[in-house]
């Protein structure tokens, strides 16, 4: 393992302002006879940076010994990191991921719990080498974020809509790790099967107080809401649902408790997130135009469900401690995504959903043909999709640019990993672009195909070794033929501008 680490040295562009070391050193592998000789230019966060004949190299100090007068005195190679953020996200998602990563290294993890919101983690190898000392502080309010980001060696876990995440990206690097969604939940025994957006607004304003107004029994609606100061209440408000007006609601600090209350109350209606759904029943929310999307892992992961938001990591570090570098790299891999799914969060993994499960989509496509899309176009699209499976990788671009939004970059990475693993080698892959209905129908069709073409280039651009040369990739565009969301809001229209990936057995 150490040898592979040593051999996976990365060429780096050194523009650092840290202590400069001068003088020749020899770095010897602790497990093999590999030696590197060069000028030590920097030592920081457990990384030697040396100038060699091959160029500038970064070497993990845990894998080598340093010989030479310029070698730094090293007290400890443990990465020191602070983690801040929402208590539930840290305990339910981030700590399990840290544990899983540590176990994958064969390391032991020891947690010291001082108070409910303060703990620390020590990660140590079997041969007692300390890899990381992590201090965790939960419940930091978002208005302190700017200050926290300025702290050294800090990682923050946050939640926010796609728009919030894009704004956060301007401040510091952003890494989406899971999707989530605002959901309206009831008990399994409640007969109401869906809610319209309008009905939701009226319930939250107190205009609807009885289930009979929603097609249910003659009983008062017991509304359960997240605490007004919570992160979810803030996200709910961002998405146009104001939960602060209804004074008769019961508020919960703990979203799991909220879901439990709603699940056990036949007349309860809760607003929570999908990751804390537990045994409650999530109701589909009907758009004003009739768009009907079930809150499911696939629809949330793909960003098709209307009230999707993301959990993401943010750090301002250009040069994070080595353990965090490796941990962030682990988060992009399949084991981490599996763990995220197991913890109840829709990860940005590649899930499949056949056309046979997308009746609502077909209905909606057919309904839009009455406007401007010829029925023959819908016919052609359905002929292509017949027998195919949609992947949850749905890609969207920042408006007016050719840059993918952060969650789409993560999703594309997951797709490319799947393609490299050969999981779709025997399939025909269709990259299909779609647009909103605004604008000229023919122009929209052209734009949709251009977006699909761009995604195809991104995939091929990642294939420097030509591994995917034999993969059948068809690039298509159907313009506005298959909207997912109602376009009465800018967010709804933006959802419809997208590139989907479908796979189909080769004939």
């Amino acid at each position, binding site marked *: 393992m150490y040898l592979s680490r040593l051999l996976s040295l990365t060429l780096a562009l050194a523009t650092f302002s840290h202590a400069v070391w001068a003088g020749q050193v020899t770095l010897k592998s602790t497990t093999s006879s590999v030696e590197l000789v060069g000028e030590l230019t920097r030592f920081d966060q457990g990384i030697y940076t040396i100038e060699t004949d091959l160029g500038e190299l970064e070497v993990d100090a845990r894998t080598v010994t340093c010989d030479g007068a310029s070698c730094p005195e090293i007290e400890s190679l443990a990465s020191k990191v602070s983690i801040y953020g929402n208590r539930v996200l840290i*305990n*339910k998602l981030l*700590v*399990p991921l840290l*544990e899983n990563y540590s*176990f994958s290294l064969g390391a*032991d*993890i*020891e*947690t*010291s*719990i*001082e*108070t*409910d919101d303060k*703990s620390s983690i020590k990660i140590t190898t079997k041969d007692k080498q300390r890899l990381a000392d992590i201090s965790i502080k939960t419940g930091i309010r978002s208005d302190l974020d700017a200050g926290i980001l300025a702290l050294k060696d800090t990682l923050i876990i946050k939640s926010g809509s796609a728009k919030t995440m894009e704004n956060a990206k301007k401040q510091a690097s952003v890494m989406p790790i899971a999707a989530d969604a605002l959901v309206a939940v009831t*008990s*399994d*025994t409640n007969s109401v099967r869906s809610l319209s957006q309008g009905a939701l607004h009226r319930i939250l304003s107190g205009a609807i107080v009885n289930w009979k107004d929603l097609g249910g029994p003659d009983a008062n609606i017991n509304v359960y809401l997240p605490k007004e100061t919570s992160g979810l209440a803030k996200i709910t408000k961002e998405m146009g649902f104001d939960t602060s007006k209804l004074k008769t609601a019961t508020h919960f600090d703990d979203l799991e408790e909220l879901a*439990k209350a709603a*699940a*056990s109350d036949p007349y309860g209606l809760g607003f929570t997130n999908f990751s804390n*759904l*537990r*045994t409650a*029943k*999530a109701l589909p929310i009907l758009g004003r135009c009739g768009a009907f999307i079930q809150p*499911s*892992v696939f629809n949330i992961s793909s960003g098709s469900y209307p009230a999707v938001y993301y959990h993401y990591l943010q750090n301002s570090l250009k040069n994070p401690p080595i353990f965090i570098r490796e941990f962030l790299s682990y988060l992009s891999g399949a084991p981490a995504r599996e763990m995220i799914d*197991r*913890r*109840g969060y829709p990860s940005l993994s590649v899930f499949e959903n056949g056309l046979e499960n997308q009746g609502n989509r077909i209905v909606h496509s057919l309904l839009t043909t009455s406007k401007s899309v010829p029925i023959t176009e819908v016919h052609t699209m359905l002929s292509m999709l017949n027998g195919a499976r949609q992947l949850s990788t749905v890609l969207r671009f920042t408006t007016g640019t050719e840059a993918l939004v952060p969650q789409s970059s993560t999703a594309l990475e997951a797709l490319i990993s799947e393609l490299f693993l050969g999981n779709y080698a025997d399939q025909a892959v269709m990259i299909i672009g779609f647009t909103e209905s605004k604008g000229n129908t023919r122009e929209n069709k052209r734009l949709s195909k251009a977006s699909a073409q761009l995604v195809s280039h991104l995939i091929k651009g990642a294939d420097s070794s030509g591994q995917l040369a034999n993969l059948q990739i068809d690039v298509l565009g159907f313009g506005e033929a298959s909207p997912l969301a109602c376009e009465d809001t800018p967010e709804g229209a933006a959802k419809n501008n997208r590139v989907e990936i479908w796979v189909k057995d080769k004939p």
Partner: protein
Amino acid sequence: MRLNDKALTFITGLILLLGVGTFVHKGDELFASKTSTPQIAKADTDSTIRTDAIASHSNKNTPAQRPNAFASVVVTPSKPAPISGFELVRSVETASVSTAPETFGTLKIDPTQMDCSLSLSAKPLRGARIQLDVKAPCHRNNVITIAHAGLRFNEIVDDKGEITITIPVLSDPAKIEVSFADGASKSISTPVKDLSSLQRTGIAWSGRVNLQLNADEQAFNSSHNKQITKLNTRSYKRSYLQGGGYLTMLGNSDVENGKFVQIYSVENPNAVFIDFVVVLENPNQLCGTGFSISAVRYAANLGTQITSKNVSVKNCSADNQSIVLKNILRSLIVAQRN
């Protein structure tokens, strides 16, 4: 038939006459006749047999030692091998049910004639459990440490030096090691049935910390929710027949500073979410200090994962009967709505 009945009656009468008579009046002869494998009985005022009443261990720290035992008769070394001879104590007078010995003499017995070997057998049971049988004739009433997959717990072997215990295991094959305070130890490895089909979550700790693992089994229909606690552990058999998990509590609270393990196992969950709660009872005795606990998790795709956690006990108040420890164990998500 009639002849046989008579013969049986005669033989039974003979056995009763000779046997009971020997037992009551010639107890020393009863034991003396087996000097090749000396019987070591517990020295205890409760005992009806005083003759040859020999304590099996001398460890005063073990809770097995009864406060009213005859201190003078506790002579057997805890590690018999290096000892040249057992100094046995016997009553000068013939023992009787009602008379306690008043004076003592000593008797040398050759230890080479005593089989002190520690023997283990492990029988794989359904549901990834092992029935462990320990025979340690020279460690009667001693504290035994049983270790498996990095977890340890203490039990006390009986007055024959034996214990049979069922252990939910975490690896296949399952290696189990037993040891005594004197260093005597032995291990056994055995294949396991059904391990890949179940999940296990547990806690392990040591010392005078009163912890309790509770599992809340949550179903989609909340009327089917169940709580598994020390008062309702649910047997393996019931779990197998009716679904849901069961709780196994390992460790003997009579052992001072003992080691304990509690494991919840589930194979056929009725619930879709299983929430675990660790309750610390009588927290005030730990106020201002802390303790360590290991969180154990087994699933086929994860293997066994043990994380150690140090918990500080703060915010004590006089009326604190128990506190719920958060973030020790994660919920088990068996199925989720999709």
